[in-house]
């Protein structure tokens, strides 16, 4: 029996199952954790199954294979809306979701970041709140998640070996006096473990890890879940709406199957993990007479507070070759600027992480719309470039939001998501600081020239169904449970109350593990 074969199937009217929508970091993990506790799960995935042997070491064909390219629209003053108006996000539509594409950086959110409103104060225009949970509440779950992901530099696992791109970062950062600079905490095997190979330094992390060295639900959680015989995976199904009864309980999920036929799966619990664009879209498209503004949206917070991290990329050009494409994409990190230090002119902090792009994507993303000598002179330096990605906390804002397009419809006639984003002044100040410090690192390492690249379409999409202590401030509680429908859960990065500086996947996994405990306990107690 193939590792992806269903060992069980559930009837459409089986109302004892938990329906999990999305098989990425949140949904894939939740499905497996529930199954390990004996809970029956129907796992719905919009994308198809692409196994490691199908991955393509070629950026554009891989993008066509894995990325979510269904139409979305954009508004706001972010450059993505101009350069990539129908591609606000660089995320996956595939079994495993964006864990197929992610780079693997696995950092815990810092304690003070969970208390963002208390720590940063009241910033004009920002809708900062404290999370309804603390770092202490998550500590043991973070431990579990780090073990699950084989995060390097935890649990006695060695760091990954330095590649060329990181050597440049480390030399410059050290000369500037930065102290916390190493090859990162990565969910990439630094040794053979759990039947998965160690990293072979391919450099195609974004295109799917051929060796399965990088953790992805595709070849960890999902096969493990199927192995229990308690999970049925249905691929290429697009969820249209979630239905409920007069007691505000979810009763089922309506979706279009691979042949475009409308189906309905009854549900005891529904957990939504479609990434922070599709998740609010689904709730908004599930409006009803009891929830005229969208399911679980009495607070009018569904879709609001969309965050994408304050990002940017710095490239350094050197006399001698770097060949940054060789080896792990995120090969190392500088963490000194991740602290909260308002003297720098902004609240919150940012990480500096190496990045590399292949030649095709360098052309596409280096300076979208750019042309002429300025553009080609940079491209000519490709082999001599080092690259770093800047990723920091961005401010939640009520009007940065996912809404339903008034005009655009998908293949099933459903309104598509419009993503609106405009930088907060804090974001602008942080990005400028980060660009300057990133360039300084490369200059300290001997760069003859540095370049800035604007933010890419977002891979870190957060906050559109956020956790809140008070129902009026958000969509779900600290367990991701809807404030309004007790058997509806948010299970992806949409839950994040604030973005924090760190790459979000480890926290999404951590919250999913914790949520599985909670759902199983509530089911046992017959509370849901």
């Amino acid at each position, binding site marked *: 029996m193939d590792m992806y074969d269903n060992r069980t199937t559930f009837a459409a009217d089986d109302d004892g199952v938990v329906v999990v929508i999305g098989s990425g970091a949140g949904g894939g993990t939740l499905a497996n954790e529930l199954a390990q506790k004996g809970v029956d799960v129907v796992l719905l995935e919009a994308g198809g199954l692409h196994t490691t042997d199908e991955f393509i*070491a*070629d*950026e*554009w064909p891989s993008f066509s294979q894995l990325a979510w390219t269904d139409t979305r629209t954009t508004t706001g003053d972010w450059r993505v809306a101009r350069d990539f108006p129908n591609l606000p996000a660089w995320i996956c539509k595939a079994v495993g979701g964006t864990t197929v594409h992610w780079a693997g950086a696995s950092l815990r959110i810092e304690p003070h970041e969970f208390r963002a409103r208390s720590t940063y104060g009241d910033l004009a225009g920002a809708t900062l709140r404290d999370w309804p949970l603390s770092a202490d509440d998550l500590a043991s779950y973070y431990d579990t998640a780090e073990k699950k992901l084989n995060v*390097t530099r935890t649990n006695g696992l*060695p*760091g*990954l*070996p*330095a*590649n*060329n791109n*990181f*050597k*440049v970062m*480390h*030399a410059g950062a050290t000369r500037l006096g930065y102290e916390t*600079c*190493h*090859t990162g905490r990565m969910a990439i095997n*630094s*040794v*053979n473990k759990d039947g998965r190979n*160690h*990293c*072979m*330094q*391919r*450099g*195609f992390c974004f295109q799917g890890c*051929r*060796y399965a060295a990088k953790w992805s639900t595709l070849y960890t959680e999902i096969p493990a879940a199927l192995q229990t015989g308690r999970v049925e995976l249905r691929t290429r199904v697009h969820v249209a709406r979630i239905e409920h009864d007069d007691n505000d309980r979810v009763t089922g999920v309506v979706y279009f199957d691979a042949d475009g036929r409308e189906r309905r799966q009854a549900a005891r619990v529904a957990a939504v993990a479609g990434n922070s664009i599709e998740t609010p879209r689904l709730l908004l498209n599930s409006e009803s007479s009891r929830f005229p503004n969208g399911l679980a949206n009495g607070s009018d917070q569904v879709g609001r507070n969309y965050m994408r991290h304050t990002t940017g990329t710095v490239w350094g050009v050197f006399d*001698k*070759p*770097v*060949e940054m*494409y*060789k*080896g792990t994409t995120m090969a*190392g990190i500088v963490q000194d600027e991740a602290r909260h230090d308002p003297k720098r002119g902004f609240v919150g902090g940012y990480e500096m992480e190496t990045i590399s792009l*292949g*030649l*095709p994507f*360098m*052309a*596409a993303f280096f300076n979208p*719309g750019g*042309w*002429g*000598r300025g*553009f*080609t002179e940079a*491209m*000519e330096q*490709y*082999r001599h470039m080092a690259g770093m990605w800047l990723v920091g906390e961005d401010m939640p804002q009520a009007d940065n939001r996912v809404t339903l397009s008034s005009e655009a419809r998908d293949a099933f006639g459903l309104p598509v998501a419009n993503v609106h984003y405009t930088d907060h002044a804090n974001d602008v100040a942080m990005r400028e600081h980060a660009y300057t410090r990133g360039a300084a690192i490369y200059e300290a*390492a*001997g760069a003859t020239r540095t370049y800035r690249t604007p933010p890419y379409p977002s891979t870190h999409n957060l906050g559109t169904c956020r956790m809140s202590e008070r129902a009026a401030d958000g969509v779900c509680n600290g367990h991701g449970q809807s404030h309004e429908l007790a058997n509806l859960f948010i299970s992806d990065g949409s839950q994040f109350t604030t973005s924090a500086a760190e790459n979000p996947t480890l926290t999404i996994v951590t919250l999913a593990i914790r949520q599985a405990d909670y759902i199983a306990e509530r089911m046992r107690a017959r509370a849901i």
Partner: protein
Amino acid sequence: MSDHAVSRRAFLRAGGAVLTGTLASTSGVLALIAPSTSWALELEALDAHQAATVLQFTRHVFPHDRLDDAVYALVVKDLDAGAAEDPTTRRMLTDAVRRLDEASGGEWLSRSAAEQFVQVQAMEATPFFAKVHSTAVVSLYDNDMAFAHFGYPGRKGDPGYIHRGFNDLHWLPDPPDGASGPVPETA
């Protein structure tokens, strides 16, 4: 573009919808991977003059003086295929070539590089420019000849660089053990 005028050897086969050229250098990396030193692009929608004009226009948008016309021809190939599929695209391309020639009082291609560039700049806001740009930014940089020119191995990296130089930079000090990690021992 001055040295480009010297290097470009493309010529037009009169009366035939074919764009041909010869590699400017027989000693470069391109010559090593190209099956032949001469190349020919059979056109579906554009005539040879239109194709040559679009190729030269693309050279102005993304000027890599030592990148052979054979690579730029891949952009023309994609634009030509688009024109064959879509009458609107075909009209856009043919109209733009005619406008370039009209504005040059003859063949735009026969003008100096500096004079050509004035016309390119003047067209920056047109759908034609956007079409050439958006096609070229993909086609020009997503092929084995471009990979060879810019020094990107592409799919050759698929097995991994762990034994093939992922850490072979030696003009900077190596990070200490605490900042790095051991290279795994493989069988």
